[in-house]
């Protein structure tokens, strides 16, 4: 039927493709994440200060996953962000907690705008297990990373920082934090070593997704060497790039979550009985579950198109924003319905549906929700 209908859209906004490396990573990551991140261990880590299992993190490092999108010159594997997508997706399915996303994004920041010296110093460490993160967001809740109020001022040999950054993921675990600031009214990126922070600079934020660790970073009183500045001429483009990489990987984790919560819902619908019938036979539950599933299938198609097309001028951004918007919508709907379809149990903390619904809210809050990406898409498409 679809073939006989023909294409509903006749322009190139990205295509689905899968490299051999992506396929291999998908398989390995599926098994690893399933094995190392059972829902019981996810639950245990909710209460844990660090929020992830250090042993599992070491294994992730040993698997070479932090090196995937780092060039060979800097100790990496020399693939692209497309190959990170299946890994992130499977971590999302298993709700595996780790500073993988933060560190991957930080490495991309170094690649995009770091000086040669910074690349040589940092990238081999980041591929070998040092934790790093980005501090790009601020308090007024917008996703345009070029709107910055934190500041950097050069004072002699030093760069002195001020202002406050929010939603700095995994900051407590991080060795390095890459912070966006305004310097001479232009955006700048600066590397801050965690040990250089005065005590009290980090405040753990209480966030809706309890699997995540996030912090407010107060920069007042922090100063760094001039060599900590990234290349100023490349910062603006780097911030745009990081917004898209962040959106893509966020879409991957979100999409993986949608798969998991649908499986979780279906499992309940196959076993729970009411009025003498298995409740999955009721169309009031069956049909919306199918709708959620199809949204997931569509989001996954977008995800692998975005991964495949990410580097293409123009289409990469369109494909990525479509992937983020559809993943956001899919997990939001699937997890919302999962709570509802679990009835009274769905309202309890013990029901895993809440984990996924909170996860959806988290990802919608980071890198832009579906409506935001659609708004940006309007200007790209029309």
């Amino acid at each position, binding site marked *: *039927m*679809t073939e006989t*209908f023909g294409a509903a*859209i006749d322009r190139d906004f990205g295509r*689905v493709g899968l490299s051999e490396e992506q396929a291999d990573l998908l398989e390995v990551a599926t098994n690893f994440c399933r094995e190392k991140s059972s829902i019981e261990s996810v639950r245990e880590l909710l209460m844990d200060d660090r929020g992830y299992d250090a042993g599992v993190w070491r294994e992730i490092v040993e698997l070479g996953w932090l090196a995937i999108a780092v060039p060979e010159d800097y100790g990496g594997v020399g693939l692209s962000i497309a190959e990170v997508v299946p890994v992130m997706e499977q971590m999302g399915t298993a709700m595996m907690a780790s500073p993988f996303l933060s560190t991957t994004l930080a490495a991309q920041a170094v690649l995009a705008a770091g000086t040669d010296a910074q690349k040589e110093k940092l990238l081999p460490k980041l591929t070998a297990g040092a934790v790093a993160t980005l501090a790009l967001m601020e308090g007024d809740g917008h996703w345009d990373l070029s709107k910055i109020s934190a500041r950097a001022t050069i004072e002699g040999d030093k760069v002195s920082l001020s202002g406050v950054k929010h939603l700095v993921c995994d900051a407590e675990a991080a060795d390095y934090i890459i912070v966006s600031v305004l310097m001479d009214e232009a955006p700048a990126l600066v590397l801050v070593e965690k040990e250089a922070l005065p005590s009290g600079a980090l405040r753990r934020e209480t966030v809706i997704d309890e699997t995540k660790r996030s912090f407010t970073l107060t920069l007042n009183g922090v100063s760094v060497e001039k060599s900590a500045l990234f290349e100023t001429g490349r910062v603006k483009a780097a911030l745009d790039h990081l917004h898209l990489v962040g959106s893509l990987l966020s879409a991957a984790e979100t999409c993986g979550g949608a798969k998991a919560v649908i499986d979780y819902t279906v499992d309940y619908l196959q076993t729970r009985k009411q009025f003498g019938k298995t409740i999955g036979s009721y169309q009031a539950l069956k049909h919306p579950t199918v709708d959620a599933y*199809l949204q997931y299938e569509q989001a996954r*198609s977008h995800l692998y198109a975005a991964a495949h097309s990410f580097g293409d001028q123009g289409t990469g951004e369109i494909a990525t924003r479509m992937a983020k918007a559809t993943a956001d919508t899919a997990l939001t709907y699937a997890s919302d319905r999962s709570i509802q379809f679990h009835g009274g149990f769905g309202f309890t903390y013990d029901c895993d549906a809440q984990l996924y619904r909170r996860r959806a809210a988290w990802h919608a809050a980071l890198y832009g929700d579906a409506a935001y990406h659609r708004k940006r898409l309007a200007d790209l498409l029309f």
Partner: protein
Amino acid sequence: MTTVDQKELDEFAAGADAWFRENVNPDPGFMTPLTFMEVGTDQQFDYLRDWQRKVYEAGYLGAAWPKEYGGGGLGDKFQRAATAAMRRHNAPIMLNAIGLNWTGPLLLDIGSEENKKKYLKGILSAEDIWCQGFSEPENGSDLGNAQLKAVRDGDEYVLNGSKIWTTLGSYAKYMILLARTNPDAPNKYAGLSFFLAPMKIPGVETTPIRKLTGEYGFTQTFFTDARIPASDLMGAEGEGWMIAMRTLEYERGARGGQAGGYVLTPFDAFEVVELARRVKRDGAPVLDDPVMRDKLVELMIEAQSLKLCQERGKVAPLVQDNPMALPLSGKLMMTEFVRRASEFAMTMLGSRAAYYVDDPEAVDNGLWSRSYLNAFSATIGGGTSQIQRNIIGEHVLGLPK
């Protein structure tokens, strides 16, 4: 594919492109049907029948069907190239939809040699129009309960009962027919048999049904002691349900083998964007209205979803969780998309959405409203969207019946 094959394919594609550029008439002077379910006048029927024959004779239909049955004997890639050329030049639809997409693939897969020789060429040339007799007035979604009786009498079966929603019913020479040969079978499915039945025989009458658009497009078909040869039975008695389900898989795109071309006009979401540029709301193009703009983006994303799902369906590692999910979902996703997209296009028209086909004030001669109303033919026909959700829920997700 060798370089020689590639060269042959490239030449074929270029030939097809030139042929359709040359031969598609952009304005035949009357409204051409957008789908095979919208053929309402003899003028439309004759036009589309001639067109299909012309395309077939040029070698651009059935290119992948075997030569000995009238096909082109080439690979699938050749037919896909021809179909792409049709789309590029906005060619009219292929008329003989049931034959090309259902009967043909079915015969090629499990038909007898004799029947392949007898039927396939006439399907391609549109000489023999086919229709489908599955639904009955009292048994629509519950197809397995079909009650039309086929009683064996010597070398014949005697048919009594009625079929409904018979697209092209008054024009068809043959019908693929689901009938009850054994009312006492252990279950309702086991009593059904599948026939390749002639239509132009005594005891078969068709009555046109008027659609919600006011047009005609299909019939109710009445069988009163109609006698057909016993050799028209396909498979064995009692295998009707299995064969009928197989034909539905061709329709849902879960099985290949179709002759090519399209029987429903391709819906390009960008035509809706163009409309949004042309029509105004509060003095400015609809495209500048932030609310409508967001809805348009949603439409674009969904259109792209359908395309990407087709692409992903071909990448094995990305569908191994559930290989049947995308094939079984295509019909639901596509038909619901077209329905919502044309509904949205209609609502964009502001006060002019009040006009309908043929009023001089109607935008695009009422095309959008008519498309919306007609879109239900696909969300209802071939198994309603609700039945599709049951199928996906039960066969893909494993939910209980």
